[in-house]
């Protein structure tokens, strides 16, 4: 299988600090999401969500810039079709 490493990163990037920050920030808002599904008017949770959502967006922007796209919408066609270049999440 062709393994195009133009992104300059290796599979190690998937467990490096940039990836871990995204995983952590993404997980916090997800666990919060489930809490808000059953506590939709909890003001503490809503303001915590607002704070953590911007942390997630920053972590994702850093990941996209340093490693590669997270969603299809992160792909900049000027860079070519980078969607398939970074390691897939299950690859070691």
């Amino acid at each position, binding site marked *: 299988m062709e393994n195009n490493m133009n992104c300059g990163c290796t*599979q190690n990037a*998937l*467990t490096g600090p940039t*990836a*871990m920050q*995204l*995983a952590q920030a*993404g*997980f916090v808002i*997800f*666990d919060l*999401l*489930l*809490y808000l*599904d*059953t*506590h*939709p008017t909890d003001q503490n949770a809503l303001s915590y969500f607002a704070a953590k959502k911007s942390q997630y967006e920053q972590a994702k922007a850093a990941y996209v810039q340093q490693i*590669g*796209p*997270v*969603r*299809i919408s992160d792909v900049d066609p000027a860079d070519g079709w980078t*969607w398939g270049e*970074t390691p*897939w*999440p*299950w690859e*070691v």
Partner: protein
Amino acid sequence: MWSYEKRLQYPVRITNPNPKIAQVILSQYGGPDGELGASLRYLSQRYTMPNRKVAGLLTDIGTEELAHLEMVSAIVHQLTRNLTPEEILAQGFQNYYVDHTAGVYPASAAGVPFTAAYIQSKGDPITDLSEDLGAEQKARTTYDNILRLVDDPDVRDPIAFLREREIVHYQRFGEGLRMITEELDAKNFYAFNPAFDKQAR
């Protein structure tokens, strides 16, 4: 609809293949209490959940179970890399191997292919949420059983994460059931099915 994020909810990086354990963990992919059943169950039940917030909960937990399905299959895939025929026989992996090589296939540890008979979508909110509470406990027990068998920390870490998620889901489904019952008459919750009947007669 679903969009995909090219990352695992919790990282999986396993250095040492182990097909014997892979076969056990496969039950959380295609087995009776695994993540495939969980995601199909919740995503199927949400349509007839009359409380919109609980329908949202089913959608969100069902989506998370798809992410867990991805983690379990990543674990199985990484445990079955670079195998030799001698290792396959020595580890007792040959029965799965002969039908799937090192492909990831939804079956139980015992080799029973996934079936919708593992799930129920009963179209009654109390029944469906009760099923979901049971499902989360069954999944937790399965992860407990896996943790007893596994020494490799690369495998234990994501498995312990997945196990904890089942406990959180149990809490949320319990809260969902409270939300459903709050909309019903406490003198008789079973007078009618709010997903089907207009009212009690």
